[in-house]
């Protein structure tokens, strides 16, 4: 079952080139994943975010 997830890395890396710029497919995948994670972190709602805001506003009212 886990064999499906295996990636054979026993060969030279695949490179993508744009003029003088060159990056391996593995590194490009990680960079694009980081960009995706960053954008998702900005826009995905955080669990209990509304409750946290309510809790803080109640605390500030008490003060």
């Amino acid at each position, binding site marked *: 079952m886990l064999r499906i997830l295996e990636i054979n890395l026993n060969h030279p890396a695949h490179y993508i080139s744009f003029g003088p710029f060159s990056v391996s497919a593995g590194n490009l995948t990680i960079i694009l994943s980081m960009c995706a994670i*960053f954008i998702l972190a900005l826009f995905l709602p*955080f669990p209990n975010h509304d409750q946290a805001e309510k809790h803080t506003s109640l605390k500030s009212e008490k003060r």
Partner: protein
Amino acid sequence: MSNKSSWTGRVRAATLEKFEPEDLLPEVQPAYVASWIYIFGVATLAALIMLVASGLYLTLEGPAWWHTSKVGHYVNSVHLWSVELFFVFMVVHLWGKFWMAAWRGRRLATWITGCLAFFASIITGFTGYIIQTNFDSQWIATQAKDGFNAVGIGAFFNTLNTGQAILLHVSLLPLVLGGIVIWHVILVRRKGVVPPIDEAGE
């Protein structure tokens, strides 16, 4: 109450004045911290803990073990994937803090210690790659040797000297990085988490 005639009393008084226990271990956080972008600092710390734990195991057993045994392969992989996640989380944390100008509100020292931790991590990661004792590490070390020679520091930091690289990776650099990270976290706790730019009062 504090005896300020002795240096221990003066250090204690100065420490308690600068680092109040309520700031170092707070029970509540501001509402804006309930956002995914504020997760990546602690995620980086979690990856660092996994790195240190798996690294200690590798240090005890040695290269013959991590190249040949099943458990060795597993712990070696945990160490590799911890460092991959460590850098991914740290870079996303860096992007988040850069775009919210996290040096605002007298937090410049926090920002600078974060930058220092990033550079120390790169050097620590690099020495890790050249002590894998495989063809990959040979390739990286010989290529880096040319680079370091070209900038004139090849004799001081000789990447072909595996003993030097191992000692740097398992003793000096973790101490330096650990010290910077602890300093960074203490500053975050002391100054508080930076609010978003559009937060009132900023």
